[in-house]
Structures are given as structure tokens and as C-alpha cells.
């Protein structure tokens, strides 16, 4: 009798666990060994004893975790022995240092994608397709209405919006996630201007990490170091959590914009109350999800995040074995 081979990754109360390697991927509870796909809050959590992650992401992890944890950076593509498995990290194209986790055990290969995108991004290494038997993919934007335009075109729109607001004598407050999206926008904007941009404290410290990692971006000025700054005509980058708070008052009359894949849908934009929505996402859109899952040549696809149920059913109806995993990752973008 042939029994089905043991899975290389299972969902436990602590998170995604690899039994033969005795480690977790992006655990949501403190564990002994955590392999981390990237530094976003829902993937990198406090309290584990040891963190293994891709070298370009080490600065972000240290910044977020503080100095007291053991952080083991590993170069992309280098194999590390964990338990009886061989583990390597491969660029996911999501943010600086983001990685897919490739797990090999007794001739079988599983890949955990973490968050990823296929669009070019000047702030991080491009996604590297990795063939595997089982592919655990994110599915944040897994509906066919999510199809993202080319980033330079959208960034040009942002620049035009900023200039139009300047003409009206008001500030432009652009909300972007502090880690990844902000730096990507600051980097892409170089095609249109050399002017400095004001940044919120949360954006400022992470932008510093990116600069030290050698990423080129527009010059930035932290908000709040000088008293009585005149923000008219300025561009300010802030995390979405700052929207509508008293912190915004210092900018006087201003227009607001939000950079996110969710801005693809008009109702989402209007409900969140921003003047403008800019469709820039650090996740894969519908065509990219299909293409990536297919290109992995996996016999089985497991899905996390967002619209995983829809993508699961879509694959199953096309004769591709797929199922959804219950995880506690967010839908931020």
C-alpha cells in the first residue's frame, strides 16, 4: 500500500509549519525558528527566538524587531540545512528583501511565495520563477477585475496631480504603506523630478534603511523637524493610518491620494474618502497570479490571503488541484 507523502508545510495554530525542517514560515505566534518571507507586519511578528531571512531584508527586520533577536541573513539562492530539509530563498519582487521560501525534502519541492508581484520595481530584486511540486501562493487580488496598469504611467499621474495641487497653492498628501510602497514611489518619481519630498516619521526611518541598502530615491525631509514649515505646493508621503488624524492639520489646505491595488475599484476609493486613488500594488494582479501559478508547474496550488476561495475554485474547475489555507495574513496594500 502506498500512503500519500507527508506534506512539507501544514497550517498550525502558530502558523505555516514545516515538520521535517522543524521551522515556521511567517508564524503569527512566537516560535523557535522563523523563516521570514518579508518585513510587513502580518508576516514578520515579534517574539520568535531566531529569524532566517534574505540578506537585503536584514536591515528592515532589525529596524522592526529591535536589536535583541537573532537575525540570520541568507543570500538569495543559497541552500541552508534545516532539520532534514534544504531551504533556499528566492526573490519575490514584493518589497526590499522579500523572498519565496523553497523547501526541498527527499526529492520533493514546496515553495511558499509570501507576497509577490511581477511588475518591475526599482527598489527590489525581480520575482524569480521557481519550479516546484506544491506552490503556496498569495491571492490578495485574485479576482479578474484586478488588473494593474504599468507603474510609470501611474507615477506620472501622481506627479501631474502634485503639480496641479501646487498650482492651486495647496499641499498633496499621498498615503502609501510606510514599508515598500513609499520607497517604490519615491524611486519611480525620479523619472519626473529631483525635488525633495516630505515624509512621515514611519516612512522616514524605513526610507533610511532603503538608502543604506543602496536604493536610489528622491531626497526626503522628515515632517516636523522645523517649526512652521510652509507646506503649500509640497508632496507629503504618509502611512494610511495618518489619514484624518490631527497630525494632518499642519499641512493646511491639502488634497489626498492613496496608492493601492484596492484603488482599482471606484467604490473602494470613494468609501475610503480619498480625493484620488492611484492603482499601484505590491501584489500580483489576476493575470499575474494565474501565470505565476501555472509557470511553477506545481501539481498542487495552495492559496492564502484575500480572494483565495475564488482562485481555488477557478483552478479546480480547470482541472488544477488547488485548495485554500486558513492563515491570518492581512489584505494591506
Amino acid at each position, binding site marked *: 500500500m502506498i500512503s500519500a507523502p507527508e506534506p512539507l508545510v501544514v497550517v498550525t495554530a502558530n502558523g505555516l509549519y514545516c515538520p521535517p525542517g522543524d521551522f515556521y514560515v511567517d508564524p503569527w505566534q512566537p516560535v523557535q525558528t522563523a523563516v521570514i518571507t518579508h518585513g510587513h507586519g502580518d508576516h514578520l511578528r515579534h517574539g520568535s527566538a531566531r529569524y532566517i531571512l534574505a540578506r537585503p531584508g536584514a536591515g528592515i527586520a532589525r529596524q522592526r524587531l529591535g536589536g535583541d533577536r537573532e537575525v540570520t541573513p541568507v543570500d538569495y539562492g543559497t541552500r541552508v540545512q534545516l532539520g532534514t530539509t534544504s531551504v533556499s530563498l528566492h526573490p519575490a519582487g514584493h518589497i526590499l528583501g522579500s523572498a519565496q521560501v523553497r523547501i526541498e525534502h527527499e526529492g520533493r519541492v514546496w515553495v511558499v511565495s509570501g507576497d509577490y508581484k511581477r511588475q518591475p520595481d526599482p527598489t527590489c530584486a525581480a520575482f524569480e520563477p521557481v519550479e516546484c511540486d506544491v506552490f503556496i501562493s498569495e491571492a490578495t487580488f485574485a479576482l*479578474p477585475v484586478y488588473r494593474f496598469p504599468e507603474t510609470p504611467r501611474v507615477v506620472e499621474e501622481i506627479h501631474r496631480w502634485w503639480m496641479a495641487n501646487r498650482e492651486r497653492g495647496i499641499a498633496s498628501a499621498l498615503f502609501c504603506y510606510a514599508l515598500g510602497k513609499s520607497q517604490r514611489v519615491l524611486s519611480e518619481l525620479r523619472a519626473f523630478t529631483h525635488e525633495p519630498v516630505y515624509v512621515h516619521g514611519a516612512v522616514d526611518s524605513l526610507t533610511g534603511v532603503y538608502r543604506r541598502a543602496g536604493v536610489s530615491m528622491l531626497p526626503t525631509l522628515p515632517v516636523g523637524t522645523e517649526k512652521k514649515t510652509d507646506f503649500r505646493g509640497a508632496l507629503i508621503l504618509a502611512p494610511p493610518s495618518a489619514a484624518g488624524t490631527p497630525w494632518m492639520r499642519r499641512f493646511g489646505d491639502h488634497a489626498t491620494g492613496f496608492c493601492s491595488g484596492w484603488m482599482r*475599484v471606484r*467604490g473602494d476609493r470613494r*468609501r475610503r474618502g480619498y480625493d484620488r486613488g492611484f492603482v499601484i500594488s505590491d501584489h500580483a494582479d489576476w493575470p499575474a497570479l494565474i501565470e505565476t501559478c501555472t509557470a511553477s508547474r506545481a501539481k498542487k496550488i495552495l492559496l492564502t490571503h484575500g480572494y483565495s476561495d475564488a482562485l481555488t*475554485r477557478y483552478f479546480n474547475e480547470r482541472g488544477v488541484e488547488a485548495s485554500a489555507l486558513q492563515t491570518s495574513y492581512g489584505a494591506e496594500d
Partner: protein
Amino acid sequence: MRAFSELYEELDTTTSTNLKVAAMVRYFNTATPADAAWAAYILSGRRLKRFIGQSLLWRWLIEVSDLPEWLVEESYSAVGDLAETVALLMEGNLAAAAVVPDLPLSTWIEARLLPLREVDDEQQRVAIIEWWRTLPYRECFILNKLLTGELRVGVSELLVTRALAEVLKLERNDVTRRIMGEWRPSAEFWENLRSSEASASDPSAPYPFFLASPLEADPATLGPTSDWLAEWKWDGIRSELIRREGKCFIWSRGEDLVTERFPEVVAAAAQLPDGVVLDGELVAWRDGAIQPFADLQQRIGRKKLSPAILKEVPVRFLAYDLLEQDYTDLRALPLRERRARLEALSANAPDSLGISSAITASSWEQLANLRTESRARAVEGLMLKSLDSPYGTGRQRGSWWKWKIDPYSFDGVMLYAQPGHGRRSNLYTDYTFGVWSNGELVPVAKAYSGLSNVEIADLDRWIRLHTTEKFGPVRQVEQTQVFELAYEGIAASSRHKSGIALRFPRIMRRRLDKPAGEADTLSDLQAVLAAHRGQTRHEDPAS
């Protein structure tokens, strides 16, 4: 249509009124006369009747999207709007090379959409699918909105008027007057708007209504009472009565010509001299007293005006103001002068044509006291109008105030929720509330306004997690959430299970502090109804 879709986008993505006006001005200045006329038509809130039902569009979308129906449904529920879902899904099928040259908005409507009414389903299908395949996202969205008769643009009529006034180099009042009522958009119409001596000859042309703003400040800040005209705020239909060239016309606030609905008022108006325009209120009136609005509504609802209903619910026009006399526009005169002329004019008017009497009071305290009697008098409060004020356009703050009484309110329990319309259709925003009767909750009100976006999002989440049963789009929810609801009036109704109908119910706040058991009862509401009825039957509010 490209320029129009860009205008739509600009209007949709700013809250600045100046930017909205500037965008419209830019559009009108560069559009062809026919396009400008159609844009003015759409922007001023007029709508083309729908060309295609949603269900046909849905079927064709499934057919061309190359996606399973459930996935299109899933997409639609994330987007919440069919026109947008089509545009988003079709963008994927759009070959860059297929993008066709832009056609003017007027050509789209006149040469493509209007002829759709003359052809069968199959021809409609072929045409529409072809357009979907070739139009870029934004234009595809506008096309679908036009097809379904749902194209609404986020600008007020006042802003459109401002933009048109700037483009046409006309006074705003003049613009408002010219675009009121029914008209057919065409190049000729636009040229007529532009030529200064346009069709002023239409005897039915009304003046735009001047609207009062709600008074929030202490009335004492308005200065001496002797500078103000105080009137009751009548609960009827605001109307304009026009007597010109031997004919009578009655316009309601909604800009509908309603002359035929009120034969007794028309008969009375025949006694007026020619070249007169009155602003006033149509009210149900019997035995010297105003009757509940519900009575008036009942009469308006009748398809045919039988002698019985005319007898049962007599209507009276209560004049507020005199806008035109001897064919001369009096609106620039101070109110005290217009009022004196109005009183002289209506001195011998027949019964169905009265005047809204001035309330004399020597102090604000005295007026405040009178205001507390509003409910007993079946009026909505007081109107305060500066005696020096000209008759303005739209809502200009400062000279006319409505000093309304606080609304009635009650605590109800949420029973059902359903998705809203348009941009809110992916959220549960329309709710049904009930009150207790014999240990059971009976529905008494539907309300969909009054909550902030954050509260709505919060409630939407709660509703999805606490659904007990689904009936199509309607969800029955756990009966635990209490809301304070305000309403303007109450009437007996045999059409409602509860036996009562509330007027303008709206949500005041969510009572997270209140358990469902402490919500109001049907007998509480019946008591309000009984008091309301008793008072309006026996008192004379005109005294």
C-alpha cells in the same frame, strides 16, 4: 466621448467646488455645441431613459468575458456596480490595436444609443459587445451608465449653473431660468443659450426658487425682530403659480409642471391680473385649517381626480411672495415692498388662493414660544425672512432661514439590511427597523441615511457576521442592534403591517448602549399618531 469621460473623472476625483467648475468650463469651452448641450443636459441631473436592462447586459457580459458566471458574480459583488464591472472585466480583453478613434458625445447618443431603441435584442447585443471590445475603461464605464440610464455626476445644479454662466457670459439667474423644465439637447439649443435674447417668450417659464437655510444660531443674533418677516413653515408642496397671457401654470419644486393636478387653484388664479408670478405652498386645507401632508400625498397619488377626492382633500395655494407683476421681474425689490404688493393683490382673492400670514411678535422669546406650538398647528416650524432681502436664487445663506422644530424620534431595532444603490451597492446601507408589539418586532421604518462612512463600514461587517437568513439581496439580522430614528410626521396606513407610516425616517445614532428589549413599542408610536390627529383636526393654525 473621451473628453466627457475625462470630465466625469475630474468631477469624480475632487471635492473642490472651484476645480469642478473649472473642469466644466474647460469642457464647455472646447466641446462642439451639440456635445455641450448634451453635457449640460446630463450634468444638470437630467437622465436619458435606460436603453438596456441590467439583466441583458449581465447575460452578454457572461458571454464575452470568457469567465465562469460565479466568478463574474464574485467580481460584481466586490465592485458593486454593473457598469464598472463590465468596464473592468472588458479591459482585459481589449487589444491595444483595437482602440478606435474617438466619437463626439452627441454622436454616441444620437447616432448610436437612440437608434438602439428601434432594433431587436440581437442587434443590440452585437452593437454593444463590439463597443465593449473597443472602448477603453473610462469610456466603457460611461457608455454602460448611459445604457442603463444611471449616469449621475457628482455636481450640484448650482455648480453647473456657475460653470454655464461663466461660459455663456450670462447671469446665473438667467442660466437657471433657461435650463429649467424640459428641453431637448441639440446644437440649436446650445446656440440659443448663447444668444442673449433667447426664448424669453415662453409664458410658462418659471423663476428658480429661493431656498432658506436651516437656522442653527441663536435667532437673537439676527438683530431686531422688526427687520424680519416670520411665517409658519407650511408642510405642503413648494410651488410657483404663473399667470401669463390668460393662462395659468403651476410648477412644483421638483420642476414639474403640475397645473392639471390642482383645478381649484387654477380656477382661483383666473381672477388674478395677467403677468403675475407667485411663490407659495400647495397645502391640503379644510375648514380653515391645514391638513396632514399624508392627505395631500393621497390626492397626488390618484391617477384620476374624481369629484369625490376633490371634495375630500381640497387644496389651497398659500402665497409667500410676488415675483412678477405687470410682466415685470420684481425679485430685486426688498421683501417689504414685494410683500405689500402681494397683500394688495390678494386682498380679494378667492378661497383657494390665500396668503401665508405674517406672524406678529415683538421679541424672539415670543417667536420661540410660538414655535413650540408648531406641532399642534401641523406646521414644521417658522420661516424667518429679512424684510430687506431680494428674492435670490438657490440657497444663499444669510437672508432666509428655516427655524424648524426638532423632529420626532424613537428607538427601533434593526431587522433587515440590504445593499444600497450606485456606489454604495457593495455595502449594506439600507435598513429596516422595528418596534415591539405583543412580544414581537414589527417593521415600522426603512432608513438609509444618517450614519458616517466609518459607522456604515462597521455596521456592514456586523451585518455580514450576524445574518440569520437571506432573502435575495435582503439579509435578516439578529435582533440586537438599537438605533435612534428621527421622523417628520406620522400617519395611519393600511398598507403597512404596523398600521402606521412615518415620514422621512432617518438614523440619528446607533444606540450601542441600549439592549433591544428597551426599544420603543408600537403603542408609543400610536400615541404620537393619536395626539397628532387630534390636534390637526380641531385647531386653526392660521390664527
